[in-house]
């Protein structure tokens, strides 16, 4: 229980700081901390495969991509500055609406989940150990087609990213 609270608190605080930071580089680094805490939670949930994948794929690959783009663009402080100093509820138009919607979402989710907790105290069943073997087996039998489609998705995303980010060829 203490570990759950520790990891949960780290994840929540780091995520809050991610959206509170002005400098995107700090945001990315804090998000890596948040992902580390989440992978600790996955270990607590007897999902070591997901925990390791979280570190390798998310913290290792995706966040490095973000960091690379932040440093490539080299624009940590742009003109959003003065706009973001205003309190979200006092900004013009749709932004105020969006901030109010986010607050409503928090209230709704907390309300729904605290009500759900009253009826059914759902402790986890005793773990039958879920090995990587189990995941691999069903990934290549039951989920073989989605798995193959995933590779197609990655190819398309890769080609699309290259085409979008490519510098326009000099016209002759």
């Amino acid at each position, binding site marked *: 229980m203490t570990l*759950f609270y520790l990891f*949960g608190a780290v*994840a929540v605080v780091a*995520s809050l700081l*991610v*959206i509170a*930071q002005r400098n*995107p580089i700090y*945001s990315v680094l804090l*998000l890596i901390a948040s992902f580390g805490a*989440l992978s600790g*939670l996955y270990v607590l*949930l007897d*999902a070591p*495969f*997901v925990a390791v*994948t*979280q570190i390798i794929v*998310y913290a290792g690959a995706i966040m490095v*991509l*973000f960091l690379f*783009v932040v440093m*490539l*663009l080299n624009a940590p402080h*742009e*003109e*959003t500055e003065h*706009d*973001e100093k205003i309190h979200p509820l006092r900004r013009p138009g749709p*932004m105020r609406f*969006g*901030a109010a*919607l*986010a*607050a409503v*979402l*928090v209230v709704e989710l*907390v309300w729904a*989940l605290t009500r*759900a*907790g009253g009826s059914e*105290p759902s*402790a*986890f*069943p005793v*773990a039958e150990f879920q090995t990587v073997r189990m*995941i691999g087996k069903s*990934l290549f039998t039951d*989920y073989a087609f*989605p798995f193959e489609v995933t590779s197609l*998705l*990655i190819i398309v*995303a890769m080609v*699309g*990213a*290259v*085409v*979008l*980010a490519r*510098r326009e060829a000099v016209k002759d």
Partner: protein
Amino acid sequence: MSPTLNDYLLLSAILFAIGTAGVFVRRNLITILLSIEIMLNAVNLSFVAFGRSLGTADGQIIVFFVMTVAAAEAAVGLAIVIGLFRHRESLNPDTFRSLKW
């Protein structure tokens, strides 16, 4: 007393709400993409918690697929951000209103 399914779902809800607030409140394209990653991870946490609660590995497999989609989304999204930055020298989404109205 060990944490129950509801504790994990509550944590997941809090993280998802933080991500939503980030998308709505921040005016920086990179931070908005990071907020989307927070939301995806919140959903991943509830998938794993549900799978653990039902005693199957299916939740973890879906998390695997979500991660691949997140990787693809990050690659394409960041490429679009680079393209936009080249055109307007700005990361503020309010700068890009050509497709609005």
